[in-house]
């Protein structure tokens, strides 16, 4: 790189007054004697000043129609973006996750007819197994979740009403009254969020049926109308985290994104499991989640010491 190239790289920052004091002096000295670079600066100035003037007026009626929409948003029941930390008992956590999957899949019309039922289930299975890593625990969990979904799905197509809001039985749940109550509350909350059509993030404590005996599985669930963009935003966050390569979640996320992009993944539901090696990275992830999804309201999150893995489930509506 010759001297001019170095200066040219800083030309924009110079014009924007974003260079440190010592560099300013240096670049100005150069500009004084280099015709080529000062001509570049002059072109840059012209373009930027034209860009400065691109701002256009608001269209007629903008404020009136905005007002109407704000009023509508205000009158819809309560908070549009729903969030809940859902505490579940160990044995039924698996059932809970499955019910959610089914609930959304059915509502999305994926399982409308018996004949087609197998397809989304197979997709889920393949996605779940795709998430597996070399770690045994991880693999086992992926397989388990895939198997559970398949089981649940066939049950749904045989028995329950396939239309929206179908009743789905918990085949894995211990049906004590208390637990049922918790689940139905959670379902109602999720239903409300779904009805409002807004994004939702749910953090929930879940069961130790997963990866490590003492570990906790945490579910982060995002309902979005564009799973791809949500995935991309999460990858963006992950890229900025200080995790070593061995524990990085990026490869898995990219795999998933690739599957979504190339449509090898046919369902409308994605589930990824993310691993954070320490409190610091988990907290950083959480902070960035709140930055990257500013429109999502996050009330609380599990404490770092309570989790080892987090599962993110993205449902495309």
């Amino acid at each position, binding site marked *: 790189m010759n001297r001019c190239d170095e200066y040219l790289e800083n030309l924009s920052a110079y014009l924007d007054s974003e260079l440190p004091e010592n560099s300013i002096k240096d670049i100005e000295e150069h500009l004084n004697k280099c015709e080529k670079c000062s001509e570049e600066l002059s072109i840059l*100035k*012209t373009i930027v000043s*034209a860009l400065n003037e691109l701002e256009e007026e608001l269209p007629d009626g903008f404020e009136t129609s905005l007002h109407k929409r704000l009023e509508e948003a205000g009158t819809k029941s309560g908070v549009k973006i729903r969030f809940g930390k859902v505490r579940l008992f160990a044995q039924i956590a698996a059932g809970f996750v499955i019910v959610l999957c089914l609930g959304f899949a059915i509502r999305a019309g994926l399982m409308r007819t018996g004949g087609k039922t197998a397809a989304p289930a197979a997709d889920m299975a393949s996605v779940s197994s795709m998430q597996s890593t070399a770690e045994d625990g991880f693999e086992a969990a992926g397989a388990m979740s895939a198997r559970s979904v398949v089981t649940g799905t066939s049950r749904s197509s045989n028995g329950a009403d396939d239309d929206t809001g179908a009743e789905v039985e918990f085949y894995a749940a211990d049906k004590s009254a208390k637990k049922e109550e918790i689940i139905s509350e959670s379902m109602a909350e999720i239903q409300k969020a779904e009805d409002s059509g807004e994004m939702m993030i749910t953090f929930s404590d879940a069961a130790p049926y997963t990866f490590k005996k003492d570990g906790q599985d945490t579910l982060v669930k995002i309902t979005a109308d564009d799973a791809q963009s949500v995935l991309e935003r999460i990858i963006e966050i992950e890229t900025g985290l200080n995790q070593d390569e061995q524990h990085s979640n990026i490869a898995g996320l990219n795999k998933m994104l690739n599957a979504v992009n190339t449509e090898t993944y046919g369902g409308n539901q994605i589930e990824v499991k993310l691993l954070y090696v320490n409190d610091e990275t988990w907290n950083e992830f959480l902070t960035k989640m*709140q930055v990257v999804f500013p429109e999502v309201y996050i009330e609380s999150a599990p404490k770092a010491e309570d989790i080892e893995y987090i599962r993110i489930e993205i449902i495309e509506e």
Partner: protein
Amino acid sequence: MDSAEKNLIELSAKGNVEAFETLVQAHQKRVYNIALRMTKDPDDAQELSQDALVRAFVAIKKFRGESSFSTWLYRITMNVCTDFLRKRNKAVVVSLEQGAAGNENYNPVQLPEKSPGPDELTEKKQLKEMVKQAMDLLSVEHRQVLILRDLMDLTYKDIANTLNVNEGTIKSRINRARDALKHIIIDREELFKDYVVKLNRREGNS
């Protein structure tokens, strides 16, 4: 954050539409312009900028003042726009290599072959139109930084916060974006360089 703004934010969080409207009064034109330059379509821009404002209204309880209110609002707007673009057309990115030539929507502005006379207003208008068209051909990433920098006048730090990218990346991205913009214009318009030099001389801007 001044106390008036803080007060309006608190009222908005309680669902007060009028308070929110006062709060965004100073920003809504910019929100619209972000959407307009991102989508290139006035109807889409109106729809999306209102989407962004409604979302901000609903989510304002979450706003804790960690960034300025405007940065937070622009971030929501950018998210709404990029989601829309991804959805509408996965191949929305036009790289510099593919260039403007491959884009059938590109309609180069005809520069006058001879000196257009003393009508500087017309010249400026033409230049503006040319830059606007070139801007529409940039990648989403490049457009984002130029909108935030050159239309919204944000600092590199605020742009970094808005896009959740580090400041060093923003610095080089802005430089590359402007360079790309310049090349689109110059490649298409041989006259551009003379034109710029002439314009600068006249304005005593060089």
